[in-house]
């Protein structure tokens, strides 16, 4: 009986894999249910040369060593060989998240060190040249390189994605739309890529500008207000051959039906893994609040407002202004985040959310990660030096889950 089913209906995973690889028909799986508020974190990490701190194409060697270790999280390749992606298991709260990202940090560092590489967080490498990057030797990535041309190598940028579990497909679409409006806050909060191709870009998150070059980037269209709407939209694009799987949508926030989550995709990979846990907790609390609040859809004009908010956040980081799409009131992002955290702390059931809040507030007080890197540049640091201090920040362990800690480890090495 089982074998008959297998013979007539292709397994979902196989169909999905073929669609993602661009080798099978378009495929959108049904939305899996998941426990609201569970979360997962994906981090794209830089693999660096320990001498020059330039990108080093050693991800395959590091993955070979990681694959020998027993762990609950996963490590996978990315489009170029200087990128390494790690993804946590399903997490329930800040404490879980912190302990797992710290375990990932130490394990990945050890494997990288063994082959003579360093690891760093950060959204974009300060001085890498896109044309010097090498496509990972795997058919899926070669296909991407053929499809997107130079954009594939330009996509050597490093982001953090947060998955939040949603109970139903319609809830996922509703929260997806709500979280999208607040995505610029996360761009600002995580911004740490002020340099691009060897120059000070004038932005706090230069990485944020790279994704916009891809088709299907931006935000989920405003007319999608239910899972049915989304499926119709997918089918329409699939008929034209524009999309084959959910992975072809480079939206800032998108549903992820196979996991039963929505995925926030705008963050620069934090310089310290512990920030990732704190940012994910903030996103999780926001989503839970939206899930249990009445639906608020933005009007058609909000799209331009979003683009402006996004640009401002990428440019100015936490010093930028954010225009509330519902009220139209402009406020400093720093204040909006603080207000959010205070409000969410009142309703949060996570006993450790206060610790996550403290990490974020310390970061806001210190001027943000981009501000810290810009200080180094202003002090006369070379681009190699900027890459080095970022790598040293990643290497510094988090002292203890509930302790206050320094935002700028290794600053004395300047």
């Amino acid at each position, binding site marked *: 009986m089982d074998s008959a089913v297998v013979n007539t209906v292709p397994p979902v995973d196989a169909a999905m894999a073929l669609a993602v690889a661009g080798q099978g028909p378009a495929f959108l799986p049904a939305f899996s249910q998941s426990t609201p508020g569970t979360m997962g974190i994906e981090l794209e990490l830089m693999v660096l040369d320990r001498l020059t701190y330039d990108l080093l*194409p050693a991800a395959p060697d590091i993955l070979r060593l990681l694959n020998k270790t027993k762990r609950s999280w996963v490590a996978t390749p990315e489009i170029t060989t200087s990128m390494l992606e790690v993804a946590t298991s399903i997490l329930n709260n800040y404490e879980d998240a912190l302990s797992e990202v710290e375990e990932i940090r130490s394990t990945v560092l050890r494997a990288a060190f063994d*082959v*003579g590489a360093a690891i760093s967080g950060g959204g974009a490498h300060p001085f890498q040249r896109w044309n010097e990057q090498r496509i990972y*030797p795997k058919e899926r990535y070669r296909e991407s390189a053929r499809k997107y041309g130079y954009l594939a190598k330009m996509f050597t940028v490093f982001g953090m994605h947060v998955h939040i579990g949603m109970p139903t497909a319609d809830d996922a679409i509703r929260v997806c739309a709500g979280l999208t409006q607040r995505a610029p806050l996360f761009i600002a909060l995580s911004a740490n890529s002020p340099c691009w191709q060897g120059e000070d870009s004038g932005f706090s998150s230069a990485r944020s500008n790279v994704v916009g070059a891809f088709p299907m980037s931006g935000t989920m269209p405003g007319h999608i207000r239910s899972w049915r709407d989304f499926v119709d939209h997918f089918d329409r694009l699939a008929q034209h051959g524009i999309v084959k799987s959910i992975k072809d949508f480079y939206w800032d926030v998108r549903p992820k039906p196979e996991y039963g989550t929505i995925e926030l995709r705008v963050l620069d990979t934090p310089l310290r893994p512990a920030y990732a846990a704190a940012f994910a907790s903030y996103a999780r609390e926001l989503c839970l609040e939206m899930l249990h609040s009445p639906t608020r859809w933005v009007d058609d004009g909000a799209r331009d407002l979003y683009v402006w908010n996004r640009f401002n956040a990428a440019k100015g980081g936490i010093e930028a202004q954010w225009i509330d799409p519902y009220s139209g009131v402009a406020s400093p992002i720093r204040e909006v985040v603080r207000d959010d955290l205070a409000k969410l702390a009142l309703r949060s059931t996570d006993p450790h959310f206060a610790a996550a809040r403290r990490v974020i507030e310390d970061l806001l007080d210190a001027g943000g990660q981009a501000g810290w890197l810009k200080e180094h540049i202003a002090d006369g*640091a*070379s681009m190699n*030096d900027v*890459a080095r201090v970022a790598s040293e920040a990643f290497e510094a362990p988090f002292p203890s889950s509930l302790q206050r800690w320094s935002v700028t480890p290794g600053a004395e*090495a300047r």
Partner: protein
Amino acid sequence: MDEVLSNIELLLLSPLAAIGAALLLSQVIGVALQRRGLPKLYGAVVAGLALGTSGVGMVDAPLLGQFQELLNAASALVLFEVGRKMDLGWLCRSKRQGLALGLGCLARGVVCALLLWLFGVPLVEAALIGSILIAVNPVVYASMTSDSQASGVVTYAGANALGLSNLLGLLALSVSLAWLRASDLALGSTLFDELIKQSVKLMLGALIAVFCYGAYAVANRIAKAQASVRPGILLAALLMDLGLCSVSSSSSLVSLLLMGLLLRNAESRENVFQAQIRTGQEIGYALLFMMSAALVDLKQLAGWLPVLLALLLFAVRMLVTRLSLAVSDAWSPGKKNAMAITLCSLASVGSLVVDTSIAQTTGMSGLAANVMGALLALNVLVAPALTWWGLRLAGEVREGE
């Protein structure tokens, strides 16, 4: 008219013009080879063979002798770059990887020396050649990685093995040289005297390195120098080091190697100097290698025993390196094979070790001298190609190359 012709003749006889012409030829041939996807360094090989001892004899040992000081400085600067790429922290803390690379260096020397001894080379001479065979040729390795724009774990480990092998090679060479001199009855000195003499040279070189690095660090602090201006201060310190080594007859090779090592490891912000003078470096490599090739006498490859022994030593060195890498499991078997091949080149008395004291070494028996000659010829002809192939085997060259 006669005066003009005589002037032209004079120009052609100028040692500098002859070297310049050889370098020009090596660059032209090198670029043509590179366009066909072949290693550019072979331009220097062809030019050196054509114009050197094996060819028309325009660039020969007496001519190169006029540039001895320059050659010494160039070789020492190459070793500085080697030291600068040595990551002591990684070599020590990675444990198995550092051990594998160190073991490879020592095993190369010991096994080669034993092999030579078995083939009838006197033990003292076998030890001297064994010491030389510890070292990997920095010009071949650096030039090939630069030419192929290689980058990755094999390239990184190779750079560390290169530094380690040259450091250990220089130390072993001092001991074996002392032994060789002590066994020369004409000199009338004891092994202890010779060891002291060699140690003083090394120690003095090390002290000069520490002093010059200190001067560099102090100058940076006083000037509060930013990254962009630190290379200028560094160049001044390097010149100082070379000058002090020259007047004190201490080992400039050890001194400059240590300068690089200190720069790389003493302070983390100095890890990040980018080569601003890459073109200059590449021309320097081509010049040094062209000079090495010019000294190659292809007749050395005529005798079957020295050639056979040289080929055997070449193969055994690679095998021993590969076996030593088995100590670590950080690299895949394919990468280990590639690493053993990329580290196949060897330094020689005639090319890398141009330290005056060693260049003046005499008294090698016929077989030892012939084996060294054949090894040098093989090194010039084969090692760049093998290194180039090894980097491709590792998959660490730039895409499309």
